[in-house]
């Protein structure tokens, strides 16, 4: 029970952090200043959500009894075990290994071009929005509060990315070619979110219940974008929720974690 909640909290946090990290790669390199600023905003929102969630995960752990702590030992960052202090948000973000990350694969894929970034954000935000809506009703007061606070942000991410999907789908021949190519790359990564992981029981709401609302949202935006929705029920990638990631995550983590690995347990 405690273990599932802890792992689920990490899953939510990892999703937000990894996508926030990816989007941040655009900062200073966007197609126009306004878009640079907008995407950086999304990145900031996601990193903010990740911080709240990691803090909550750390609080959970610090409040566990010995048995509870032993049950989640495999999810903890090894270097922290020698710090002799309570678990903190940055330990979870910066010192876990790739196999301990629980984010959806779609969040870790390279940023690609603007079409890839936009479409990934749209797919992810459409899911996250529904997920946070469910969580608002959670019996876990902290998760409910974080979801409540984050929902406004996510609604904006969803609207913004949806508008861009429409612009690119119904823009020029080139933008259409690019968003269709992004769709060919991304579609197989969209199904993972809806397949419940072992930790998505009890307090965590059932993600499978969100599929039809998600399909509907994608369908209506795609219709406006004059894009075809690929057949659902096709084969889907998975593994992120049990820590088997694509070959991209390791590089992202090596870069993101380098200072904490080089200078462990310092204050910055």
């Amino acid at each position, binding site marked *: 029970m405690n273990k599932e909640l802890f792992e689920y909290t990490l899953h939510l946090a990892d999703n937000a*952090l990894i996508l926030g*990290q990816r989007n*941040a*790669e655009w*900062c*200073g*390199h*966007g*197609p*126009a*200043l*306004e*878009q*640079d*600023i907008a995407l*950086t*905003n999304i*990145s*900031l929102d996601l*990193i*903010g959500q*990740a*911080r709240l969630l*990691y803090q909550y995960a750390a609080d959970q752990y610090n409040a566990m009894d010995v048995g509870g702590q032993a049950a989640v030992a495999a999810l903890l960052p090894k270097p922290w075990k020698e710090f002799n202090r309570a678990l903190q*948000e*940055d330990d979870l*973000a*910066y010192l876990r290994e790739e196999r301990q990350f629980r984010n959806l694969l779609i969040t870790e894929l390279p940023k690609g*071009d*603007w079409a890839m970034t936009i479409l990934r954000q749209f797919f992810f935000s459409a899911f996250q929005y529904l997920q946070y809506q469910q969580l608002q009703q959670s019996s876990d007061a902290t998760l409910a509060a974080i979801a409540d606070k984050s929902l406004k942000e996510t609604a904006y991410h969803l609207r913004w990315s949806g508008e861009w999907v*429409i*612009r*690119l789908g*119904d*823009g*020029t021949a*080139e*933008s259409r070619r*690019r968003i269709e190519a992004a769709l060919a790359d991304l579609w197989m990564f969209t199904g993972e979110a809806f397949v419940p992981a072992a930790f998505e029981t009890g307090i965590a709401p059932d993600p499978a219940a969100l599929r039809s609302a998600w399909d509907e949202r994608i369908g209506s935006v795609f219709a406006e974008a004059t894009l075809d929705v690929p057949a659902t029920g096709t084969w889907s990638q998975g593994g992120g929720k049990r820590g088997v990631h694509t070959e991209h995550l390791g590089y992202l983590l090596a*870069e*993101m974690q*380098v*200072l*904490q690995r080089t*200078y462990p347990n*310092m*204050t*910055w």
Partner: protein
Amino acid sequence: MSVQELETIFQNKIDAEVRIEPKDWMPEKYRQNLIRQISQHAHSEIVGMLPEGNWISRAPSLKRKAILLAKVQDEAGHGLYLYSAAETLGISRDEMTEQLLSGKAKYSSIFNYPTVTWADMGVIGWLVDGAAIMNQVPLCRTSYGPYSRAMIRVCKEESFHQRQGFESLLVLSKGTDEQRAMLQDAIDRWWWPSLMMFGPTDDASPNSVLSMKWKIKRFSNDELRQRFVDMVAEQVKLLGMTLPDPDLKWNEERKHYDFGAINWEEFWNVVSGNGPCNKQRLDARQKAWDEGAWVREAAVAHAEKRRQRTGSVAA
């Protein structure tokens, strides 16, 4: 009215501290001077995103990552305000971007130095933003209205960045030996380039006289540089660090710090394109511009389709 009469009215306004607004008559040279200065300032904000952007992905804590992201984002915002201010003078953002990419327009040379360690983030906030503010605060009262108003917003945020930068250095200065060494190293590398940010000495500064007369500028390069040295020489003590200048010392008579000779050869070298990162910075901006072209075109094409649809519905 004759041009001479217009010029008199114009100069009277300036002297009376009345802001010049876009629709007011102004000498062509004033306009050109302002376009040059504002666009250079805008370009500096945009190019300035790159050296700091270099550490976003590697920031050592989530809090620092968020602070750095927000700061670089603010710089994009400053670029926006300033491009808008320049646009009131009859030049488009695209034209200004062209000038940046072709090398016709300049940006602050400080951004042609690489950011080598994390400590550079704090030191840039402290020294580089500090020097920028020293230059910019007087611009809040500059004679051209849109520029002055943009600068008020910019300065407010820059001061915040500078405080944040210094705060992060205080943390490093109280940290481990490695963190303190990293901090001293960053100060050593950024100190002299920061002093160069005030531009050439007054006797070698070609645009200054007219800018002073028109109250675009209000203090000379050397005056501002001295203020900066006086400020930093005190602040560095709070960090328990030193500035890399054996000649730096308090001059009781002048009531200012004396400091060593600046390497102007390096300055002119970097200005003329031979800094460590000049090509890298322009290549990065060129790449963002080129790779963004299809996105900007798609947005325009879609807006046009929308407009036509709405039009035909209305018709």
